[in-house]
């Protein structure tokens, strides 16, 4: 009798929770809020908790990695930065495992991770990582030519390399315009699917392509 009652109650309670926002949705939203509130460590930790609890979602791993990578760019302590990137690499590997292969969003993240590594000491990692990064972007562009983030990230990387080699980065402005147009065309299909980048394109265009 008691057992029966308990079962009923538990059924009732879980019904309640399901009715409202799902746990996954509220968790993800909370993590994004933390990120917006300039609490990247807390946000990354929550994304990671969600990732580990859900077990088969690639997005929380993706965002946990992304937060770590973005934060790593401004880090100056070399060994800490190296450790953080190692951590991010594990998260990327997990994301790749749970995504259905060939995910260009993860490829972009991987290229960004390498770029952050490269900034650690360009003279050490530049020669080795530049071709790796080039290769990732070329492959990503081949797989998903209409993904605005692929076009944007590749153009931004190309502009950086052009600057390094004393060339005019403006020759990649067309790519930025293409990316911007693609942002306007694309609408997100999956909830929480990566949608970042439009503001970045606009900033880059304003900074590099609008002068004189």
């Amino acid at each position, binding site marked *: *009798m008691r057992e029966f009652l308990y079962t009923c109650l538990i059924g009732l309670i879980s019904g309640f929770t399901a009715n409202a926002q799902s746990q996954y949705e509220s968790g993800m939203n909370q993590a994004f809020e933390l990120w917006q509130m300039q609490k990247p460590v807390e946000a990354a930790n929550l994304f990671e908790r969600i990732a580990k609890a859900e077990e088969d979602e690639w997005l929380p791993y993706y965002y946990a990695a992304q937060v770590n990578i973005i934060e790593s760019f401004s880090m100056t302590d070399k060994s800490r930065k*190296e*450790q953080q990137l190692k951590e991010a690499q594990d998260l990327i590997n997990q994301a790749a495992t749970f995504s259905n292969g060939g995910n260009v969003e993860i490829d972009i993240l991987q290229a960004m991770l390498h770029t952050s590594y490269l900034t*650690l000491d360009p*003279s050490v990692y530049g020669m*080795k990582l530049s*071709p790796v990064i*080039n290769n990732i972007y*070329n492959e990503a562009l081949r797989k998903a030519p209409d993904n605005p983030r692929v076009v944007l990230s590749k153009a931004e990387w190309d502009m950086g390399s052009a600057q390094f080699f*004393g060339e005019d980065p403006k020759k990649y402005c067309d790519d930025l315009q293409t990316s911007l147009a693609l942002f306007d065309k694309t609408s997100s299909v999956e909830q929480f699917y990566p949608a970042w980048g439009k503001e970045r394109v606009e900033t880059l265009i304003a900074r590099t392509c609008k002068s004189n």
Partner: protein
Amino acid sequence: MKLLFYMFLFVFGNLSAQQLVNGKVTDREGKPIAGTNVYLEGSYDGTTSTADGSFRFETTEKGQKTLVISYISYVPFRREMDITEMRNLKIVLREDVQSLEAVVLSAGTFSAGDNSKASVLKPLDVVTTAGVAGDFIAALQTLPGTQTVGEDGRLFVRGGTAEETQIFIDGLRVFQPYTASANNLPSRGRYSPFLFDGITFSTGGYSAEYGQALSSVLLLNTIDEPDQSKTDVSVMTVGAGLGHTQKWNKTSLSFSTSYLNLAPYLELVPNNKTAEFTEPYQAISGEAVFRKQFQNGLFKAYAAYDRTGFEVLQPDINSSDPIRFNLRNKNFYTNFSYKGRMGNGWSLNPGVSLSRSNNDILIDNRSINNYENAANLKLNVGKRVDNRFKLHFGAEYLVQDFSEDYHAQEEVNHYLEVKPAISAAYAEADLLFSKNLAVKVGVRGSYLDLNDELQISPRLSLAYKLNKGEQFSLAYGRFFQLPQINYLKYDSQLTSENATHYILNYQWTKTGYTLRAEGYYKKYDQLVTFNTEEAGYGSHFWNGGEGYAAGLDLFFRDNTTFKNLEYWASYSYIDSERKFRNFPKKATPNFIANHAASLVTKYWINNLRSQIGFTYNFSSGRPYENPDSEGFLNERTGNYNNLSFNWAYLLSRQKILYFSVSNITGAQNIFGYEYAKNPSKNGIFERKAITQAADRFFFVGFFWTISADRKSNQLDNL
């Protein structure tokens, strides 16, 4: 009624009274750790520890749960307990000793690789150094502990002869690492740096995995996975090269070929009289690497073939006519290796290398024709017990078959053959006691079949980290090596020579800076001696020699102080004497300079899109034997000076124009003297200086890379 009460309690409790989990995270010294991820495994419930290390969160979970606390570079904490017990927890996280900040065994070792913790050199440095002209051996000669022996070109480490350094590709022995060359003309490393991405150069105290080297080992690793498919074309004043890498899904193939011919160059810039080429140096070479990725491993096959030929006239103090030296060399080397992960921390690494080389030499009317077939079979097994304890052990078999035919018109002809085989086994343990203390203990046993000799060599190294940037390392080891084939071919009963190393190393690193100081003492014993002017058929050989080498090596590197400028400086002091070969008594051999220093600079000029570099090498005078003076090896040559320059100009991203000149100042370096066998009429021995073949060497090359991304170039191969 009771039931209703329970129901009420349950519903109400579930809505409002959640369980509290709280506590504090510190490290072992009690310092709070902020930013740790604290959560109940399998749930969303958790939080991030605050600046004082404390955490608190509420959960609806019940009963036995696993609390996890994780943080970068610490071992994650996990414990299963009842939620109600998760109150006022005091949690101490242990540092992960495998993390990048851990101490590294560094005594005796220089490595160039991606791994920033152990690398003193970057992979590129090996080849972008002025005066090196693509020879990675020459780049290593800017490191402390090496000697510049200008007329030889090979690696001489800490008082050892060139034969005391062994070279390994992917862990397997290389048998003929240097290009063929004539007496007193320098040879180069045979293998192009193009296919390697990791180089470890140990000047002593190395792992038990490596044997048959008294002084030093140089470990080269071929690239595991190439970045992309590309073609490299080069056109140089001395020849041309073509390389290609093709990448497929799980496999890739790289090859690199080159043809060198010094004829056009010698027309423009003739050599000194010391080396007049009647048939200019010509070499054709090809190398290839094939790689295949498996689910749990990587297979690599490497092969290299080259042919060299030249004829040179060299003046000789004992004859009025110069001596004609004609050489034909053919060399083939291949190795196969597999690195496999077996699960549960086990790894398996079998490999085999095979080599065949042939020299056809004519010295005036004497002819020497020799063959060497050699093989190295090796199996290395590793077991990672945990982050603090790793074990590896293995066995190897090394066999050489050397034969030589010697013909001289009026002299005796002879045929010599020797086939030494060595079986060896080793075991080594890596222990990390803490992030600050690491120890490696190993032992190697080897058996030489020629004379039933069994040798046991212990190895030990230890590193202790004082603080974030400073550490001390110690190394000790005993090393055995088969006598050179050149002696063994006359007397196969010679036993192994041996050396004992004691090394103390101090290293200081800070972002952009590295300082190393290393003191060592090395004792030699059982060195081969003989009783004739030259080692030959009639000589009597025995293991009667011994000696020592003691010294201090300093190295400083700075990539930070000046913008776009990188430089490193090294200084070596050595005191060494030995009795070996046909020395009448203990003396400092002619390949040792007491003081050696070098300065390497590289400067990137952005608006010229150029990297320019200067390298300066200095050595104090080297001993030579003057039969006119008292004593043995008592005189010293003048100091050695060499200033080299290189300039790599990026025409576009994929086209590079490269220019280099060695010995800009044209310093007249003298490496030693050759004395006449008999005194002249006035009782004095005539002599001839051994000098550089050319005062300066100019090199101009054009390098073009063709790849899909149009961005790679060959800057890293120059």
